[in-house]
């Protein structure tokens, strides 16, 4: 009986549903982040209210990734694939929609504020959804600071291709925030899904 138990255990553990259940090697991943704009004093955030309550969604599979922001003010996406360094920015809302492409060098210049950024990993922990996350503090060379909470239980190599601030964080960031002039912009993961993603999610118009 003991022998049968061990055989069944190994068979079930090796089967893909269980592995994907624990965030194993299933590449498809969808993470939705709520966007919150806040200050200690509260009150009206002005133009920030048009982004407050928005959602940023990260889609990825083995070869592609997309980051999409949906808010009252605008809907915009950035696409990347693992086989090239090009990023494609697509503005999907408003009268003037557009598609813009950047090669690797242009993308690097676009994000040059993150060059030389230091990432300090702390032992503090916090729970986001069902994941125990550790703290990372990213300090840019001009002194700006971002705080991130990440989990090592999920790895998404293409996440930092679209969020270069977190290129040194050893896991998937589930909450991050930036405070400027005593006001905070916070992104918090509200759902994580391993469901297969249709290839059309990663398809963008040519022009």
């Amino acid at each position, binding site marked *: 009986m003991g022998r049968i138990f061990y055989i069944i255990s190994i068979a079930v553990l090796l089967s893909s549903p269980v592995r994907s259940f624990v965030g194993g090697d299933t590449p498809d991943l969808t993470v939705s982040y709520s966007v919150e704009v806040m200050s200690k004093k509260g009150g009206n955030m002005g133009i920030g209210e048009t982004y407050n309550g928005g959602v940023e969604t990260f889609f990825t599979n083995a070869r592609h990734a997309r980051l999409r922001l949906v808010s009252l003010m605008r809907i915009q996406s950035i696409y990347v694939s693992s086989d090239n360094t090009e990023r494609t920015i697509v*503005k999907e809302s408003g009268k003037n929609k557009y598609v813009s492409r950047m090669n690797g060098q242009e993308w690097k210049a676009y994000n040059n504020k993150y060059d030389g950024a230091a990432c300090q990993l702390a032992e503090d922990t916090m729970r986001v959804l069902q994941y125990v996350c550790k703290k990372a503090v990213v300090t840019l060379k001009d002194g700006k600071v971002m705080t991130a909470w990440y989990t090592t239980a999920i790895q998404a190599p293409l996440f930092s291709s679209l969020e270069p601030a977190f290129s040194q964080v050893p896991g998937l960031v589930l909450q991050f925030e930036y405070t400027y002039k005593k006001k905070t912009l916070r992104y918090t993961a509200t759902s994580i899904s391993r469901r297969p993603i249709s290839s059309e999610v990663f398809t963008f118009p040519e022009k």
Partner: protein
Amino acid sequence: MTNRPDIWHPLKDHEISPPAEVCHRLRTILEIDDVAPDPVMGAFMERMQEHEVAPPAELEAIVGERCGVRTPEKRKRRGVRWYVAAAACVVLVVTGGIVMVKKEKPIAMSPAAPSVASKPLQTDTTNQKRAVIKDVAITAKPHSEAPIKVGRNPSFSIGGKTVQVSDNDLLMTFANYTYPEVPDYLLREGDQPLKIYVDQYTNIYVSKNMRALLKELYEVRNNGKPARKARKARRRLDDWKEKDEKRWDKSGKANPLDPVDLGEFIFK
């Protein structure tokens, strides 16, 4: 015959003493001729009759074999560990089965690429390599697991009711209703954010402060014309829109999906 173990001699010599009390009473009874039957002794004797002593196991097996009597095999008692292992097997198999059965359907959502062009392309005048894309529709099928379809007429839903979105621009859609088409959810005060269903992974919220601003947009005077507050709210929204486009679309140097860029823009 000579090789078989001799069990009879040891059996012949094998004796078991009766219980001590019985032995004593027996002796008493046997020494007295005329004695009334002792009821207590009688009961003892009956119990003695029923009293059994099992023979040694090896002898029992051999005697049974010789006499052709099959002794029932003793059932092996299964320990608790066996039952625990069996239960764990069942749980593992059931769990694996449930997870496999609930295998999710592929996620489909609105791509940026529409299936049908609705307008001719226009050339953007900015420095960057850009081309205006065709209308992108985000049509939500509320409260359903069906994949999102891309169509000509963008829509989203509030409170289960589908609403058309112009140019996929939620803010301008909310700001450009004309009476009497202004929806109730824009005219009522609300302490709670207004939830907008866009697709299966996107529910956005209109904050309380934003709801208050949108409500102001539709305040009217007695003559039906927009109130001063409404005109002021309209100018503010138009100003925000212009600043937003100037920052993200015309400069080409900042990214609204970057938290530092977005934070510095909205908090300055």
